[in-house]
């Protein structure tokens, strides 16, 4: 049975502006003493379980210039594919891992997260999605935060059946979401983000 529901309009988005670092990474831009550390700077504790990885890359605009005034946030499941939220509705199997990180881009457009490789999460079709990290990007000149995802090159089999990747018709564009692996004690996954241009990243409305 349907019931009428109250409806409000979502608050319209506005650009984060050129000084988003003040509000989201204040210590990074030398506003110190208000909070001890920038929120989301550190995702790992010694207790965190899972394969340590580094996620890094650069953000570019449509002219090929680095975007040095952006903030990136990531959101991911733990090593078992479980999210820490919503609160009280099943808890994360690894309480030491919150699953959320935030980093500024450096003047050369570089971002870096130290995290763990996420497990697989069930997709809308009931099958597990490939391991992925959700990305959200805001900056001057971005009117509404851009949603995208990072997938892992060494998960080719899982990527091939992933619900989201398979919605991207052009296989060349699909590759804009797949991070290149550089092996090491802590494997590094590299994904550049292109806001516009020939190599424009696939962005979502999710």
């Amino acid at each position, binding site marked *: 049975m349907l*019931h009428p*529901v*109250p*409806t*409000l309009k*979502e*608050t*319209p*988005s*506005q*650009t*984060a*502006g*050129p*000084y*988003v670092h*003040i*509000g*989201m990474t*204040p210590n990074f*831009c030398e*506003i110190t*003493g*208000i*909070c*001890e550390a920038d929120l989301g700077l550190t995702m790992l504790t010694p207790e965190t379980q899972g394969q340590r990885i580094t996620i890094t890359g650069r953000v570019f605009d*449509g002219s090929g*210039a680095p*975007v040095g*005034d952006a903030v990136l946030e990531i*959101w991911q*499941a733990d090593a078992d594919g479980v*999210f820490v*939220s*919503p*609160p009280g509705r099943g808890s994360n199997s690894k309480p030491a891992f919150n*699953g959320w990180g935030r980093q500024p881009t450096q003047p050369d457009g570089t971002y870096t997260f130290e995290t763990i490789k996420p497990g697989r*999460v*069930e*997709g809308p079709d009931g099958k597990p*999605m490939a391991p992925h990290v*959700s990305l959200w990007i*805001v*900056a*001057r*000149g*971005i*009117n*509404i*935060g851009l949603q995208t995802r990072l997938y892992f090159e060494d998960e080719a089999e899982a990527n091939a059946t992933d*619900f989201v990747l398979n919605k991207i018709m052009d296989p060349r*564009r699909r590759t804009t979401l797949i991070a290149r692996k550089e092996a090491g004690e802590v494997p590094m996954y590299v994904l550049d983000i292109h*806001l*516009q241009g020939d190599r*424009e990243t*696939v*962005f*979502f*409305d*999710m």
Partner: protein
Amino acid sequence: MSGIILPGADGRLYQRDRDWHPAADTPGYKSTTFRAPRHSLLSLGPTKSEMAGPTFGHEKFGPLDNDLIRNYSQDGTDAIGQRMVVYGQVLDENARPVPNTLVEYWQANAGGRYRHKKEGYLAALDPNFGGFGRSLTDDNGFYQFRTVKPGAYPWPNRGNDWRPAHIHFSIFGHAFGQRLITQMYFEGDPMIWQCPIVATIPDKAGIDQLTAKLDRHNTTPMDALAYRFDIVLRGRRSTMFENKLEGN
């Protein structure tokens, strides 16, 4: 289960009304020219990944986190400017309060100058004003903070563009798909209507939604004005489970 059934907490997020938000490419705001994606967004609807979101509160929140008048004070004195309290309620599209969610805000000082090394405006820095704060909403979704009114300032866009006085807001909600950044303006400010960034919003009613209202009754006598700014995040559908609505 009886009585009025409210929308659930477990259902899918409503589709975002992209026509209500600014388009990606808005030529009047020139910074969008090389930063707006040219491809259409891929519309998928949220998966489990977008319907979960980070929780906060276990971090250390200091007593001055929501007091921009004092939280950067270097010499124990207050920041300079028109004193005010900004408060409001965070709701979802179903008009349900969003409790225990993180709200962050940042702004220029009373002269319209940001504390940032790339900021070139000649208005003076206030040594006692940092311009950043944060709150967690209470059980009813309310937040509040104390600050000074930010100044308007000129910015490089067209020859002589000015930003109206505004405060930037970042809001989380309980799902990563609700994540929102916006700006708050002040009721009655004529500068609102000549700003190219405000003008990226297609509907005047949307601009009104970003305009905080002077709240005469909540002013602090002999101290501070009060402005109310409510924020609406995406809501969720009810979910059907064995013919019963779940998550209510």
